Each structure stands twice: as C-alpha cells, then as structure tokens.
C-alpha cells in the first residue's frame, strides 16, 4: 500500500499554486489536509502525475474570520481549528455540532473544511451543513476568481463546479438570522463513521412558535446533499406538532431515493432519514421552547 510515483509541488503563494494547476490541470490534484486523498493514493486507487500541496501558500489562507454577518473559512482552515474557534461555533453552532461527528481528532487535525467540501461526498457532514445556510463558494484559478452558491457547487457524487485548474479558495457563510434554531442529527454505526443518515436543519420561529422559515437537508440519500424542499414547505407555518412531524416524516420518505449497500438496505436508509427528520424537528421545537 505505497503510493504510485508522482511529482510533488509545494507552491509558496496562491498565484504559484494556480499556475501549477493551470499548467498540469487534469493531471494535477490539490493536496490540502490529505485525509481522503492520501488513503486513495496508498490504495493506488488514485494515481496522479502532479500533487500540488497548497499547505504553504500563506498563513492568510489558513485564518478564518468572522466579519459582521459573514464567516469566512479559507482553503487551509483545519476542521479542528474551526471546531475550537469559539466565535465561529457561537455564530454557527450547526458547524460545531457537525464537525464533532467528523471522523476523529487525528483526522480533523489535518483535514480542512474546504477540502471536505471540494471532495463533495454526499454522505459527509459538511456538505449537508452547507446546504442549509447561505454560503458562497469562491473558486480560484489563474483565469480569475468566481463564486457559486451551494446548489451549483455540488453536482454529483464527488463532483463539484471546480474545474481541473481551480481550487476552492474560501467559503463565506452568512450567519443565520437571529433567533434561528439549528440542529444536526446523525446516525452512524460507530463513533466517527460515515453517517448511515443525517439531517441538518435551520428553523426560525415567530413569537407564537410557528415556523416562519426553515431549511432542511439530508446526507447520504442522493448524489449530492439533498434539500428536502417539500418537507420545508410542509412544516413552514406550523408549530411542529406531532401530526406535522408525522406528515413531515412521511414526506421525507417519499422524497428520498437512497441506495442500499453492504451496511444498510435502501429501505432502512429511507426509514432512518425519516426518523432523523422527525427527531431533528422535535429537537428544534424543543430548543426554541427551551
């Protein structure tokens, strides 16, 4: 389990990194935290010509910021670093809750937020969380910089809007409106495992306890993190009473089409997602009241 040969590049600045990607494009791969890429190299499932290690392109790309209503997470911000950033976790508790379920500290110490997003695993926590907040993805290449939103960024299994010469420079997340309750619920076989199912939700209630705005996404039931828009519509304007929760769970079952594998049948994943949805909304209601 030794990686096949490649040429290692360690650019010292962003322009240098982008030039390398421009030059090698399809034959190159960006190395940030390496916690998904390195195993694939060791298994020789991935064989690449050029590895562009962006870890030394500058400290400014490793320092997250909270600027007014915007949280900026740059390319090299480690998951562990964000998890321990009190300001960010306070501004977006959802992120902290999700990060704690991502693998183990030894992985999060090196793994980056942007890397996880660029990897675009629909069963992963972070893409699901990003699906329920207002987020802007900044994509940089030698050709310039462009931004896309979450719906455009995640395209298919492990496929994003990133072109071969682009890297995910940063993600800007707008803090949810004041009073928004956020909940993340995941079910995994073991600590640190990928989710058999997960739900991320943001919920804003009015004074009477009625949902006025909500976003809900499910992990691992589709080729991208899946926004449950039908469920959102169903619960908006309700007080999330038991009948609504039951109907929302049914709507969830109807709107996901997961795939079975050696770990769980498709039917189980559908039922699990509905169960998690029900529990997520119940938790949101409780948190609002509590």
């Amino acid at each position, binding site marked *: 389990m030794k990686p096949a040969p490649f040429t290692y590049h360690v650019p010292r600045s962003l322009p240098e990194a982008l030039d390398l990607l421009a030059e090698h494009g*399809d034959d190159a*791969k*960006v*190395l*940030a*935290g*390496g*916690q*998904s*890429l390195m*195993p*694939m*190299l060791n*298994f*020789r*499932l*991935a*064989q*690449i010509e050029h590895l562009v290690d962006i870890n030394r392109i500058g400290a400014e790309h490793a320092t997250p910021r909270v600027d007014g209503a915007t949280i900026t997470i740059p390319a090299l911000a480690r*998951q562990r670093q964000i998890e321990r950033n009190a300001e960010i976790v306070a501004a977006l508790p959802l992120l902290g809750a999700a990060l704690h379920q*991502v*693998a*183990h500290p030894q*992985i*999060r110490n*090196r*793994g*980056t937020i*942007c*890397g*996880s997003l*660029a*990897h675009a*695993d*629909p*069963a*992963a*926590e*972070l893409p699901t969380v990003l699906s329920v907040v207002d987020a802007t993805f900044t994509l940089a290449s030698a050709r310039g910089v462009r931004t896309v939103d979450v719906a455009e960024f995640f*395209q*298919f*299994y*492990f*496929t994003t*809007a990133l*072109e*071969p010469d682009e*890297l*995910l420079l940063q993600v800007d997340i707008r803090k949810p409106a004041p009073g928004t309750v956020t909940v993340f619920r995941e079910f995994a076989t073991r600590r*640190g*495992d*990928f989710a058999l199912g997960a739900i991320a939700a943001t919920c804003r209630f009015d004074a009477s306890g009625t949902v006025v705005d909500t976003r809900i996404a499910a992990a*691992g039931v589709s*080729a991208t993190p899946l926004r449950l828009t039908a469920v959102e519509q169903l619960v908006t304007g309700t007080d999330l009473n038991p009948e609504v929760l039951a109907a929302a769970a049914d709507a969830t079952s109807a709107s996901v089409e997961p*795939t079975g*594998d*050696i*770990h769980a049948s498709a039917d189980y994943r559908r039922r699990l997602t509905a169960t998690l949805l029900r529990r997520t909304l119940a938790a949101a209601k409780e948190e609002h009241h509590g």
Partner: protein
Amino acid sequence: MLIENAFPVAAEPDQVFEFLQDAHNVAACFPGAELLDEVGDDTYLGRVKIKVGPVTATYSGTATIVSRDLATRTAVLRAEGKDSRGAGSANATARMHVEPADEGATVEFATELAVSGKLAQFGRGIMSDVSARMVAQLADAVRDRIQTSTPPPDPDAPTPDPDQTGAPTPSSAPADPGQTEAPQRIRTAAPAPTPTPAALRAGPLIRAVIAGFFRRLVARLRRTS
C-alpha cells in the same frame, strides 16, 4: 448488476437502430471510450479511459456485437476490458432494442455489468446509482447525436417491413451463471435531457466503481482534496 434504461428518441426506429449498430457511434457516445482498431467479425479493440477526481483507470479490451436482428431491432454487445494496471476487469453485456413509439422510437438498454478486482471491492455501495446515471448519460448522448443529425420522423413515411430485412434470428446473450447470481437490478426512468457538466461526461464507467469507495473512504477520514 443489471441496469435497465429506456428513453425516447425523436427519430425513425430503423434509423435509430442503424445508428446504434455502428460501433463508432456508440463509442462516440460513451464518454471516455475510444475505438482503436477493427479486427473483423463485428469485433473492435478499444479503450475506456477514466479519470474521476483523483481516481484514474484505463480498461482496454474488445467489444463485439454478438448478435443483431434487424427484424426486431435488437442487438447484443459484449465488451470485455482489462485494467491496464492489472487491478481487475470490467465486462458488460448490453442488450439494445429499439421500439416504435408515438414520438419516433424508444430505445431500451439492458446492461449486465460485472466488475472484478480492486475497484469492485471498493465500489458496490453506490455503484448502482452511478451506473444508472452512466447509462443515462450514454442515452443523452445517443439522443443528442441522432436528433441533431437527423430530421424528425415523417409520420407519413412508410414503415419498413421487418420481414424484408432478412436478419438472422438473434442469439441470446451469452449467459454467465456467475453473473446471474447477482440479484441487483436497477431500473431508471427516462432521464430528463438536462445538460451534463463536462466533467461528468468524462468518466462514467469507472466512476461507478470508485464512487462507492470515495463515499465510504470519507466515512472515517472525511476531509480534503
């Protein structure tokens, strides 16, 4: 794994069938595929090169049209490919049938896909999803090419008499009992002809195989490019 797929094409059934009988056309619609040589007896040497994210693989081998029946507009293609790094093989038996329909024709694909080796060990999880999408992409490409290169069918045009085609009786696809043990069966609806991103077109075959690995890999090791 059996992948079934049906899609409409706004063209004459015979025209569609003729298009699909040409290995060059099929190869052109199959992303990442390349025909290298024609060795006779409806057999072609070819290569499918795939790159999905960091994962790359090249399968090279043969594709043979093992049977074709103009009367029923049915053809069976057998493709056998070997991974260039010795990591396994991918074999497919695809049965293609063109049926007249209101809008022109309906193409039905039934593809029995068997992947062996390293990639197969990692990828069964969501392979079915991705394989289904892969065939859908092939369907998109077929439809695009036929519809852009041919005018819509003339509803008044005479339908050719199947009896006049003189095609031999189709032989059934070679049955591999080992493969038929796999009960997985996927049925996909006719895909919406949404434009597919260029990156996606690049590598459906192996994408199928590796995607599951990715998914589980990140499972524990979540993170990074």
